[in-house]
């Protein structure tokens, strides 16, 4: 295939991406403050955290449940470093940017340790091991009053650039947007470097990569460290947005929520992170306005039943999530209108195989 036709094939995708980026930039002009400060900012930061999980799952074949714990670790470090006057925690009161740096550094280091421990397993074992890390991190912050304790850390200051989130919601929104775009670009770049290509080789056939002389656990560990880095960015944004972090923000239910976001969006496409986050947050906020749900016993408090059913339906119908459905629709359109150039999804043939829990032995 010539380069020109390759460019042409990707054109619709690029156009859609640019369209989304432009509308996201203009969003504060279109939407009201509630949508910007509550919904869209949350979508962006949850999407960043989800992107760390999808990066691991799509390119490393590792579905990790430790991402919320890592994101929380960054958040707790930030909270401990910058606040003063909390009843629990270290209350160091240092500069907000120093807190950000330390939060990211420590969460990435913890991620590397988790990665080193989990790197010799894959597929379903990886899921279980990372889940235990997540629950242990939650119990740790719940019990260790030196760093947090049950009530968590409140009153986390943002740097001057972001300012008061309540009075300037747009600043945090743009910060989250910039981080999201950077995370997306960096991940897309990373997977095309020699490291990223090796990682995808490890995903598809660890045994062959190992016999070719690649250090499989090492590549997995570094990928996990990178994902922890992304997750920690999400954690910093979360604490700025929320002003508060407590162990309940990283409990099992939040861990599963992030997985739900990724599965709804699609575990095998990076774009699915933000798509899933959008669907999740919008459902969470607007479930009360859906007519008829109350009659079958599903009220606002039963959000998790609704999201659980949606999650179940998506796994049963399309393991690739909404992005998978979109990709299939696109292919179908291509088949119906064969004259058109169609940008197929990256590796549709491999999706079903990867959906079965990593490479088959």
């Amino acid at each position, binding site marked *: 295939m010539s380069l020109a036709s390759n460019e042409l094939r990707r054109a619709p995708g690029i156009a859609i991406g640019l369209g989304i980026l432009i509308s996201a930039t203009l969003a504060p002009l279109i939407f009201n403050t509630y949508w910007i400060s509550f919904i869209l900012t949350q979508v962006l930061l949850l999407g960043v955290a989800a992107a760390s999980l999808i990066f691991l799952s799509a390119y490393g074949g590792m579905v990790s449940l430790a991402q919320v714990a890592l994101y929380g670790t960054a958040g707790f470090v930030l909270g401990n470093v910058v606040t003063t006057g909390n009843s629990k925690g270290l209350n160091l009161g240092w500069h907000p940017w120093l807190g950000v740096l330390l939060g990211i550094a420590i969460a990435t280091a913890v991620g590397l340790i988790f990665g080193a421990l989990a790197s010799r*397993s894959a597929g379903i074992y990886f899921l279980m091991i990372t*889940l235990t*890390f997540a629950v242990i991190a939650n119990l740790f912050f719940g019990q260790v009053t030196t760093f947090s304790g049950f009530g968590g850390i409140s009153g986390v200051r943002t740097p001057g650039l972001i300012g008061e989130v309540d009075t300037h919601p747009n600043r945090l929104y743009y910060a989250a947007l910039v981080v999201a775009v950077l995370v997306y670009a960096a991940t897309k770049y990373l997977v095309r470097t020699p490291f990223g290509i090796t990682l995808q080789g490890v995903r598809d056939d660890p045994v062959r990569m190992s016999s070719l002389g690649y250090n499989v656990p090492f590549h997995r560990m570094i990928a996990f460290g990178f994902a922890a880095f992304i997750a920690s960015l999400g954690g910093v944004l979360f604490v700025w947005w929320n002003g508060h972090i407590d162990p309940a923000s990283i409990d099992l*239910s939040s861990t599963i929520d992030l*997985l739900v976001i990724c599965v709804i969006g699609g575990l095998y496409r990076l774009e699915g992170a933000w798509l899933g986050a959008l669907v999740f947050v919008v459902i969470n906020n607007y479930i009360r306005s859906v007519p008829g749900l109350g009659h079958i016993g599903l009220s606002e408090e039963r959000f998790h039943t609704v999201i*659980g059913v949606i999650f179940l339906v998506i796994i049963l119908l399309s393991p690739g999530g909404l992005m998978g459905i979109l990709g299939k629709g696109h292919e179908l359109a291509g088949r119906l209108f064969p004259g058109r150039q169609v940008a197929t999804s990256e590796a549709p043939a491999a999706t079903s195989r990867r*959906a*079965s829990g990593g490479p088959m032995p």
Partner: protein
Amino acid sequence: MSTAEAVTTQVRKQLVLTRVARYTPWILSGAAIVFALLWVLVLAQPCGDTGCTGTQTNFGSAVHDPQDFLATLLDGLTSAGVYFVVASGFTLIFGLMRVVNMAHGAFFLLGGYIALKLQRAFVGQDSAFGLLSSQVHFWQWLVPSLIAAVCIGILGLGMQQVFLRWNQGQELRQALITIAISIILADQMVAHFGAFAEDISWPGVLDRRLDLHVAGVHYTLTRLFILAVAVGIGLALWLWLKKTRTGMVIRAGVDDRQMVSALGVNIQLTFAIAFFVGSALAGFGGALGGSFASLGPGVDGNWLLYSLVVVIIGGMGSLGGAAVGALLLGLVSNFSSAYLPGNYTFYSIIFTFVLLAIVLAFRPLGLFGRPA
């Protein structure tokens, strides 16, 4: 010195270095374990009457304070009993079908709630404050627990038949399906049973302390009962797997599913039996755990964690591994919270992680794990 000699010395040096690097983790974890044992047995200094300072611990070392040491040991063994009952169901299902049942914690909690509600219905009182053990006869504990086990067994069997049977081999998808079911179950349980922690009452016969006549320990009979039940269930499972035809098929299926089914065995029936028994163990574990600790939102996650830790340590699919994993988890968690310096006992959760880390560093598949 000739070139050859120089090369030899260099190679030798490198060999020594590699060896040092290879044995460092062994030496480090060995030293840590030896220190922990010494600490508990001899070194720990008890806190004074006014409070704990420095590295003083709540309990003195085993040599000075054998009573508390023995009590902690029994605490560890008895918690290990409940961990084993719950985790053995998990490992049975995983070993045979490669299904990671993430709804195991939710099954546990639902089993506990069913037993709780049945017990209150049998006793005829449903107050928010629970029942006094003197009101409860032994059968009013046992029958609800058994019914709960059967109910959860049927629920698990239904889940397997409806959601898991048609996508065998897609491990991740199956795990995600069970996660979805656990989300729905957990949320519905909050809706129906409320958000307050409740516990199942022990029968009056068991709710007393027994003089062990060793080092003056008076120990709760209920906990010894748990230990006995766990040992009984372990033995029954072992006999079932080793001595009966179904058990034989299950063991063969753990090793090679396709071969067993090619030999004309109805593997689907075996899967159904294993799923029923595995889920029923979660339900019975819920009744045990609900009497031993409490039932409430979030409890499902904790027991899922215990099951996961036990099978990751012991090796997935191995019954013996589950027993060893449960013992290690029970002992480490109880001893670390009793023998950490008194002002720092809340760090004990770290030791669960350290235990997991040590096992994974040396045996990524667990102590008794075999590659699939």
